[in-house]
């Protein structure tokens, strides 16, 4: 079985995001970029399935600008067999990302596609579900445990009510939650080895992905700030303050 993994580059989760004063976006110049944490988890899960003998090949996919190569090399160093880089200078919205993945799915015929449940820049939480719909296959979102056997995936999902387990016939789309696994660290020799692993470059335009129905982002604003509060000295003062506010 082949596994396709979404491997998106985003602003690192430790960066304090600054909105540009003119409201046209957030400051991305000179900001540290890293793999979307959920995608590192997706890749880790795929690698573990390969190590267990469930899968033979793990292919990472990045959709983005020409300079995505170094990012994809990190995924290869982590252990992916090869990478597909769909090049576009445009910002890709989830429906377009899902349609792009569908094209790659038709070409690669994977048994499983693992994506992050959300990318931590746009926090859209859509691409996996959209791909599953367009592909007419099962989706198992927010996965915290995955078992593959007899042509189906048994997936435990983190839902508001607790933990839900579902069964999905393969091929299927899984999206990862944070507790699925802890991604491995990249070792130096693997960075060297990754240099010889193939990255297939595909022009976005050549895929013939249907365009249209886009959302226009017209303005970025900083969230309203909470004003700094007061410090109290002890438990009694805290209780008194809360009682005064009618909260206790």
């Amino acid at each position, binding site marked *: 079985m082949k596994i396709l993994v979404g491997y998106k580059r985003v602003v690192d989760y430790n960066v304090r995001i600054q909105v540009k004063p003119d409201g046209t976006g957030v400051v991305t110049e000179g900001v540290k970029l890293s793999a979307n944490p959920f995608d590192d988890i997706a890749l880790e899960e795929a690698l573990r399935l390969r190590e267990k003998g469930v899968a033979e090949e793990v292919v990472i996919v990045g959709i983005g600008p020409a300079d995505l190569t170094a990012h994809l090399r990190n995924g290869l160093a982590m252990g992916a067999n090869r990478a597909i880089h769909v090049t576009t200078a445009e910002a890709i919205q*989830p429906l377009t990302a899902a349609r792009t993945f569908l094209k790659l799915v038709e070409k690669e015929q994977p048994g499983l596609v693992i994506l992050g449940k959300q990318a931590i820049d746009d926090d859209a*939480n*859509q691409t996996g579900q959209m791909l599953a719909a367009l592909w007419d296959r099962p989706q198992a979102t927010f996965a915290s445990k995955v078992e593959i056997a007899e042509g189906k995936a048994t997936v435990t*999902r983190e*839902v508001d009510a607790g*933990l839900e387990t579902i069964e999905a016939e393969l091929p299927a789309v899984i999206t990862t939650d944070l507790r699925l696994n802890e991604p491995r660290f990249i070792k130096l020799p693997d960075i060297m080895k990754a240099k010889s692993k193939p990255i297939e470059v595909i022009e976005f335009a050549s895929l013939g992905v249907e365009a249209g*129905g886009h959302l226009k*982002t017209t303005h970025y604003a900083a969230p309203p700030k909470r004003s700094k509060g007061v410090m109290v000295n002890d438990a009694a003062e805290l209780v008194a303050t809360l009682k005064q506010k009618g*909260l206790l």
Partner: protein
Amino acid sequence: MTKILVIAEHLDGKLNPSTARAVSAAAAVKPEAIDVLVLADNADAIAAEAAKIEGVTRVLTANRTENAHALAAVLAPQVAKAAAGYSHVFAPSTTFGKDLGPRVAALLGVPQVSDVMTVEGSHTFKRPVYAGNAIVTVEADPALPVVATIRTASWPAAAIGANSAPVEALGLDVALPSHTRFVELKQGKSDRPDLQSASKVVSGGRGVGSKENFEIIYKFADRIGAAVGASRAAVDAGYVPNEMQVGQTGKIIAPELYMAIGISGAIQHLTGIKDAGTIVAINKDAEAPIFEVADIGLVGDLFKIIPELESAL
């Protein structure tokens, strides 16, 4: 014509309060009609509850045995079919709506607006990005139906009681897939208030130290009638189950009182509590970032402070 279809969320035969919040957001669009769609195997009691929500025009039911559990792959084709004639389809941005909404949008061939915080116009919305560190204004194409999930913490629940909307059964003739099957749901059963709708929440973090120690958080919460939440670190360490996580990747909540105990205040945690009325922080580290957003801060050891709080009550 502006007509909105709101997808009801329910579990164990009960309507989830997130539905009434999505109805509030629908009302803000000022539509001609707001219909609520209940997909269930036995929709009657749920539909009767939904019919009482203020502002609801009609309640539509899709009764099928396949709808016994909320599987997005099974529900989405029915919602897509029922959406014909509606300008907007709204679902709450809970794990239910997040799972279902994009699947519906893709079937309709339209983008989804995730986590709507405010309605600026029939096709213009505000939503958070970058863990709530920026708020974007997005415009959807007026020529296409809008599929959106509603950030429940941004919307009050529409009043329940005064209305008695008519209930109509829909005969949705759609073939449903059998490739996805429900196995089980493990619910943390608790007599405490529901974390997502409670007016008071007490949360513990890594500072609490262990599953056993978390008892003092539960005990204190019970004293003041609060729901109990936690940071990701507390969940990851196994002190509490996952459904208690508050934050970017957990629950987004807006209680009147939020007490963060032994929680440092990482940006991903703060995302979940931005809309809380009053934030109280108890932490032994005076430099902890949680104090930058807390309305009331108290520096000290939680194991000493909590018993003192209890005796001061």
